[in-house]
């Protein structure tokens, strides 16, 4: 059987055991940077857009004004409209989708989305445009902090998304909207 043969060959060939280093300790100096400013800067660099809202209540008004007709997956009705077994042809019609994110990462402008946030895993990828609502207090410095937040608890499927889908495969010209969302807006609230 291949499994046993592979494992046996590894046992015979591997080097003497070296220790596993302790989890990476990111430096303390980072504490002084404004996480919101950094997050916004990098998000812009990776092609994402950002709008800022003071409180959570104003967010709803803002979304209604600027993204009318969006499918808001923070609402129960939208889950009922798009149950987990929705045909993919129906999901392919999604234009603008609103999702909530548990936290964002300052060093790369990414937001964390896991499958508690959408009924079908295709939703964040098949929509033309994403609006992700993020509590400004929930921005971490770097990926080390990010994984200590998401790490062990991840089940099923989870993804970091940093800006819109992109490609540079044609002569290194950057083009947004290769396969996933063409536009990604992050709505920061609780500033």
């Amino acid at each position: 059987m291949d499994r046993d043969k592979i494992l046996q060959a590894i046992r015979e060939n591997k080097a003497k055991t070296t220790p596993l280093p302790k989890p990476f300790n990111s430096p303390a100096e980072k504490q002084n940077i404004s996480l919101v400013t950094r997050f916004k800067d990098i998000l812009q660099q990776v092609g994402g857009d950002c709008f800022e809202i003071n409180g959570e209540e104003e967010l709803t008004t803002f979304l209604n004004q600027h993204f009318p007709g969006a499918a808001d997956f923070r609402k129960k009705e939208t889950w009922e409209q798009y149950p987990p077994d929705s045909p993919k042809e129906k999901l392919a019609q999604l234009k603008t989708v609103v999702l909530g994110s548990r936290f964002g990462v300052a060093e790369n402008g990414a937001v964390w989305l896991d499958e508690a946030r959408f009924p079908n895993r295709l939703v964040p990828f098949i929509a033309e445009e994403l609006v992700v609502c993020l509590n400004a207090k929930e921005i971490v410095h770097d990926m080390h902090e990010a994984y200590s937040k998401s790490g062990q608890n991840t089940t099923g499927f989870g993804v970091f998304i940093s800006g819109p889908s992109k490609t540079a495969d044609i002569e290194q010209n950057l083009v947004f909207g290769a396969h996933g969302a063409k536009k990604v807006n992050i709505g920061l609230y609780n500033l």
Partner: protein
Amino acid sequence: MTGYAQKAGQFLKNGERAAWHDKTLWIVRQKRDKMARAVPEWENLREQASQIKQHTLSELDNYLAAFEKQAVKNGAQVHWAGDAARFNEIVSGIIKKNNASKVVKSKSMLTEECGLNPFLEKQGIEVTDTDLGERIIQFREEPPSHIVMPAIHLKKEEIGELFYEKLHTEKGNFDPTYLTAAARLHLRQKFLEAEVAITGVNFAVAETGAVVVCTNEGNADMGVHAAPVQIHCVGIEKMIPRMDDLGVFTRLLARSATGQPITTYTSHYMGPKPGGQMHIVIVDNGRSEHLGKEDYRNALKCIRCGACMNTCPVYRRSGGHGSVIHGLIGSMLAPHSHLKNYNDLPFASSLCGSCSDVCPVKIDIHDQLYRWRQDLSEKKRTSPGKRYTMKMAGKILAGSKMYDFSGKMARWGIKNLPRMLIYNRLNVWGKERELPEVPKESFKQWYKRTRQGKGGENGQG
């Protein structure tokens, strides 16, 4: 199999394009530098990544077993393939069992290494590569020329022409935004039709059984979440112990590869979708044997970022159609698995060491290539021409009389012999390269004439 020098010669026939290739990859290298410098703990991250990989390889059997256990617990089905043939059988078996005939694929040098596409196509299965660059070269029936930028060797005019022919875009429209939009529509149809999605894997986490795939386009996710059956193909060396370690590798990977702070999508697949199937195929194909070669086992730390290729003065100027995995990392890995076919690759390097400097997991790339050359020569795996030349060179360099005489002959010869005697088929070095202009006298003669009796600066005779 034509040698690297022949392929490079082909590449260099179009001088303008070769200059563009060189310049473009250098820009990517500079973007990488900018990103690396913006992270003060960069060097510590590289060291940490290198040590994590070192440790994982030294306990690889245990981590693979732990990964399997967790993945099965998550609801995935785990398969093991000792070699390429077995791998192809397993994948086609899963496809047939599901009565499927339409497959989308993303991000996998491993399937390229194993020849999966032609194997499946022979059985009437339609395989669509979904990364834009990979789709382009699939249309052209070519292998990729760079692990991160597969179509880097093509100009937009060629791609416009190709899409006109294959996707019926407007003739003469070479606009990258227009062409990308056409590809998006075409591939979206493929995603919706596909019954099985195949992906490669960037990292496999032993602690949780998670499979992590990083893309900018989102093609892995479109494929995996749209098709009822998902298959992830992972080489045994892709294991890492903990979720925590992903923090280290995701910070290094995209910065090193393209100069981005992270890829657009970093996806963690930990179980099948409701009503779906998730398969993980663990592949050896020569890797466990490679692990036993003490001098070379470091190469298995590679996370396939391509930084070594973007910085390499030889690769930038000569293109990447050398082996399945290109550039420096190809030079390190390919001769192990296909000694006969790729034995000239370790010589396609100036040993300047730039590759080792940029490697995010600190592989001693140029040292490995240097050792390879010695090994290949000892094993007489180099071409007879090279062997004979090296033997002669050894004799000449061993004695000063012979050396003086040969120098004189060479200076006379390069100036006076007809070109075809020097730039002939036997002299691979002379392909696309000019010998330098010859000086009138040797260094020894010059030294005697100008410095004799005056002594060196430190007083030596």
